[in-house]
């Protein structure tokens, strides 16, 4: 009996971790190329609403997932056009993208409030996961597996591949990369687009898997937490995975405490925990890096060419 509960808690944990893992992984790649895109929350919302709308009209959740990634990509391209093409301030443009995402998702989502769709189900047939412990392995939906695969792929890409080396070089020293002959802006745009697509997937996880319906500001600040996660991970995919699941644990604790009806903690205080935990973690990371090495890409957030 306890094992059933434990397994179910872990399943909730994985579900809470997956959207920020996806969005965080995308942002990690973007930042490795030297681009600080603070618009993760906005891109997630674009993905969430597009995914839901397409899944609702087409009846295909898969199509919804693909559309969500594309919507996130398009949103990231607006960011790329402004910051890379026109040299606008990355921080300000990221904020603008978030405000834009909130606005556009609210506008186009208005017609879908209250409708439901068939949720994104487990990838494998139910009999694979007959035993509770097997559910841990076979009971997840496709995006959970995809997020884990992507962590491994991104990690290999950054450490082992030539393209990954070039991408890191662009984030480390854009002027040098340009002098050698790499197309800094094109590489940065590609990394930004990848980040947008993954943020879109992360957003779609909310509207297609977690709560298969649309509500305003569905992502509830998770995009910002994904940004913090990248700092926590010290720009390393493996640590990002760890961080996302730790965060999943905090979020699951919040849900379980609410469900268990613990009355001595107000629900509002529980709702604060993810945000407070993020601040605590950021502070601890900062205490760590003061004695440890340097981690952030050296050119993060700096415009190229310099104004």
């Amino acid at each position, binding site marked *: 009996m306890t094992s059933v509960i434990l397994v179910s808690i872990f399943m909730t944990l994985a579900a809470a971790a997956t959207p920020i893992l996806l969005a965080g992984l995308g942002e990690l790649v973007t930042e490795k190329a030297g681009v600080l895109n*603070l618009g993760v929350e906005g891109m997630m919302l674009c993905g969430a609403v597009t995914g839901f709308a397409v899944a609702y009209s087409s009846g295909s959740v898969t199509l919804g997932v693909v559309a969500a990634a594309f919507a996130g990509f398009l949103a990231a391209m*607006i960011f790329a*056009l*402004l910051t890379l*093409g*026109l*040299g*606008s*301030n990355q*921080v*300000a*443009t990221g*904020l*603008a993208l978030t*405000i*834009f995402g*909130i*606005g*556009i998702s*609210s*506008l186009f*989502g*208005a017609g879908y409030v209250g409708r439901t769709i068939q949720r994104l189900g487990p990838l494998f047939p139910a009999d694979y996961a007959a035993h509770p412990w097997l559910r841990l392995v076979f009971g997840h939906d496709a995006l959970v597996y995809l997020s884990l695969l992507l962590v491994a792929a991104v990690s290999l890409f950054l450490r082992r591949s030539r393209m990954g080396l070039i991408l890191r070089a662009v984030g480390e020293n854009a002027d040098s990369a340009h002098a050698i002959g790499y197309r800094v802006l094109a590489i940065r745009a590609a990394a930004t687009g990848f980040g947008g697509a993954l943020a879109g997937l992360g957003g779609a996880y909310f509207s297609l898997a977690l709560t298969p319906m649309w509500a*305003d500001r569905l992502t509830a*600040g998770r995009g*910002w937490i994904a*940004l*913090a996660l990248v*700092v926590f991970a010290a720009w390393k995919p493996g640590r990002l995975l760890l961080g996302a699941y730790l965060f999943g644990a905090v979020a699951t604790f919040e849900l379980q405490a609410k469900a268990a009806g613990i009355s001595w903690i*107000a629900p*509002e*205080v529980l*709702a*604060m925990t993810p*945000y*407070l935990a*993020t*601040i605590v973690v*950021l*502070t601890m990371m*900062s*205490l760590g890096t*003061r004695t440890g090495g340097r981690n952030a890409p050296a050119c993060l957030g700096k415009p190229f060419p310099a*104004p």
Partner: protein
Amino acid sequence: MLEWRRRSEPSRAMLYLSPLIAIALTMLTGMLVFTAIGYDGFHAVQAIFVTPLVEPQRWADLGVKAAPLVMIALGLAIGFRANVWNIGAEGQYVMGAIAGTGVALLTHDMTGWWILPAMALAGILGGAAWAAIPAFLKVRLQVSEILTSLMLSYVAVQFLYYLVRGPWKDPGGFNFPQTKMFSADQVLPAMAEGSLVHLGIPVALLLALAAWFVMGKTVSGFAIRVVGRAPAAARHGGFDAGRVTWVALLASGGLAGLAGLFEAAGPFGQLTPQFPVGYGFTAIIVAFLGRLSPIGIVFGGLVLAVTYVGGEIAQSTVRLPQAATGMFQAMLLFFLLATDVLVRWRLAFRRNPAKVAP
């Protein structure tokens, strides 16, 4: 063919013109987009951008909405100038209102002219205290203020919910999650009998003048500008970046807190869960639209107030959803950032096929 050419010096004319170009582009694009998705695009844009300005009965509402935006944006602009990215003004706004309301609830049975100033002071301190957390983390521990200030605004909103549903719930309020209504000595006096226009509007204008003076004419304002533009030069000139970060965050927190208190003691007259309306985020657009200059921000605040009031009009006249206002505001910020390029670059006809990248 057209090509981008770098100006030898940033264009001052474009500095002032580009916000106007951005507004024009926003209106044009909005018209096209809303027509494309099946609304009466022309009348929507007319309702949002023009009607509030031409109908005098809307002007009071414009002032009421512009005042908090201007106040918050003045503070944010000080921060942005100093490269301090406080994006949690919404939280400081809420905490200012909470602190001021705390004083209001304590003094609910008292009378006196001093109550409202005490509430205002509490509002400033509440907002500043909330901004002091990211300031401390940034200066002492190098934690990015962007994420911490934003996280704290989620916390502040939850705290507000907790208070109005719990300890501060009005016992005589039919179990609605809201505080008691403020007493007569606790609400902002109207500028004229029966008018919506309250004390917050002249205060916002005075604050803009004060900010203009400090930023342009004093060594403190110089310190803020130079720390943001060239940190190494600032240090060379004997300015302390940490102190500037503190000043910028405390000032923007205090102003947001005061705006929150004015909103609570003005249009709301109490605290309810509907209190946070996103002024803290919209003020970011105001600050940029005003080119981070205090006088510009007054106009920027007015433009955004127009979109709020106009958005309400468009809801009834062309059935535009409320969210459209947010869309217009976001588009405005995008176009503003895009037209910024015109300050340093200009478009010219290409003389020869040699390629010049911006």
